[in-house]
């Protein structure tokens, strides 16, 4: 829509600028906080302009470590988070691709029952069944490792539904043409279905990566070993300093660092992401 009225243009720009400011201001404060030293941060008023300690803080976060005993390296926590987010996103996509494929393209007995069973899991996210799930994971000996961190979060009805929807838009003739060309079911899946759903997979990957990266409650429960801490829970732990005041400059630095991977994923996959959400051509 193209509006020619200047008042409307002026108004919409104001709204947009305000919106950007609301989103950007906390990030600016975080950046400013990360560039001051431990003494300046607890003082009122809060600094609004960057200080000169940014690289010193960066070094502290990565080399010297953060946390009460200064033994947690931000690098290790970010690595843990990265592995967790990748495993969750990859695992969810792999599982839901296959289950959507089965539901859409095969006529097996009790197909609808399976379909509804998957559907019901929508109502039971991890947070609801957290105790029994913990019990199962503990009994399987998966505490304090990547499997325990990710497997319970992988089974996903939402992604299955999304791929089901995507597959339903793929014309039947494509499958028929592939059958005549001599492709079996798995061939069709690999050679036709996956490439055709490429943009949707990318869009979902972005969403799920951020979902995985931001996990807090489950990692908090499942990890007691400091070497398995993720960055999101690490930040929370830093706030709970026992005697001393929280080290705001390091917390802000860690927060800033924690934002980088999701941002990189979004920027890197932006083109595919938008295509995946808007493209209809199959």
């Amino acid at each position, binding site marked *: 829509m193209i509006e020619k009225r200047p008042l409307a243009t002026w108004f919409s720009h104001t709204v947009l600028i305000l919106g950007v400011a609301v989103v950007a201001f906390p990030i600016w404060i975080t950046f400013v906080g990360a560039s001051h030293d431990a003494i300046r941060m607890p003082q009122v008023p809060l600094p609004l302009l960057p200080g000169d300690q940014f690289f010193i803080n960066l070094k502290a976060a990565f080399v010297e470590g953060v946390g009460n005993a200064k033994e947690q390296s931000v690098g290790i926590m970010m690595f843990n988070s990265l592995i967790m987010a990748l495993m969750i996103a990859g695992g969810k996509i792999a599982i839901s691709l296959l289950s959507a494929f089965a539901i859409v393209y095969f006529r097996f007995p009790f197909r609808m029952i399976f379909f509804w069973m998957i559907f019901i899991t929508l109502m039971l996210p991890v947070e609801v069944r957290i105790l029994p799930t913990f019990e199962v994971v503990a009994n399987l000996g998966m505490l304090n490792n990547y499997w325990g961190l990710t497997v319970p979060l992988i089974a996903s009805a939402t992604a299955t539904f999304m791929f089901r929807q995507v597959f339903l838009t793929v*014309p039947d*003739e494509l499958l*028929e*043409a592939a*059958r*005549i*060309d*001599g492709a079996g079911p798995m061939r069709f899946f690999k050679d036709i279905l996956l*490439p*055709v759903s490429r943009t949707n997979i990318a869009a979902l990957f972005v969403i799920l990566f951020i979902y995985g990266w931001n996990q807090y409650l489950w990692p908090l429960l499942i990890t007691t070993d400091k070497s398995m801490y993720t960055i999101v829970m690490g930040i929370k732990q830093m706030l709970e300093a026992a005697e001393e005041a929280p080290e705001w400059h390091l917390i802000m630095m860690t927060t800033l660092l924690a934002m980088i991977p999701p941002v990189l994923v979004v920027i890197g996959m932006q083109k595919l992401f938008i295509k995946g959400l808007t493209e209809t051509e199959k």
Partner: protein
Amino acid sequence: MARVLIENITKSYGETEVLHGINTDISDGEFIVIVGPSGCGKSTLLRMIAGLEDISSGTISIDGRVVNTLEPKDRDIAMVFQNYALYPHMTVFKNMAYGLKLRKFSKKNIKIRVHQAAKLLQLEELLERKPRQLSGGQRQRVAMGRCIVREPKVFLFDEPLSNLDAKLRVQMRLELRKLHKRLKVTSIYVTHDQVEAMTLGDRLVVINDGYAEQIGPPLELYEKPASIFVAGFLGSPAMNFISAQISADGKTAQLSEDVKVPVANPLSKQGITEKKVTFGIRPEHFSLSDKEKTGLPLRVDHAEFHGASTMIYGRLPGNDELITVRLPHIHHISPETVLMLTALPEHIHIFDQKTGKRI
């Protein structure tokens, strides 16, 4: 290349039967067109030959081998779909090569075959493009190419030209004909367009509501339609139908209460007396009677000039059906004139009104 034998094929979806025992013998190298109105079961029949749809009863054999339970890929057929069904993420080359690749042809062999087909279809410059970068006609040719490279025994076409504009359709029709002359592969072509059917087919199978109404060469179907349905379906503008009651002596036909026309060749010879029949006369087979008194009195409604011919629309007395007449050359005829029409006996088709079959 192969003979395709279709014997007593039926198809049911649950309780409803949509094809009721189709029989056809398609000989080697023949181009056969399956034609009929929308929903009559043409695609279903074609898809059963392809193996995409189960056969409820009857047998289909290709080249002497019953294929009822064979997978599509084992039937040695290739199919062109209405929307072409090209793989959107593959280049034209890969689209054409995919079937060969799965059949474990060598890279060199695939290249030779694809380039041959591309040359035949004038696709050589487009081999590296994706389907979405092609025009409708070009996509259509790629779909053809995908079939040709495999050198199958039978080509199947499901309304391949219906997504093209009128001009391109005519051009592709000619190209298809040429291609068939060259390759001589048994082809089964589904369409609901009677012009396409008449111009392409060696023989036509006219299907109505799941029954094969008539099978034969286009001219035979045109000149001797076996039923009212076939008569009305083939030919444009469509045949005129006039219902009438034949007198006891078979010499006159009562068209309406006050219109009685003499029948030139007494129908009693064929044993047609006291019967309700439908006369079928094509618009181009009418001519103006030179005698004032004999013929069908047509009250003109309006006339259209088509350059080489004049179309006259009018009604017979006591009947509301519009009758179409096509006269050669230009005639200036004003509305409400009454024309006396005649037609040669061999151009008058007579159908039993009850069964709809030709008498």
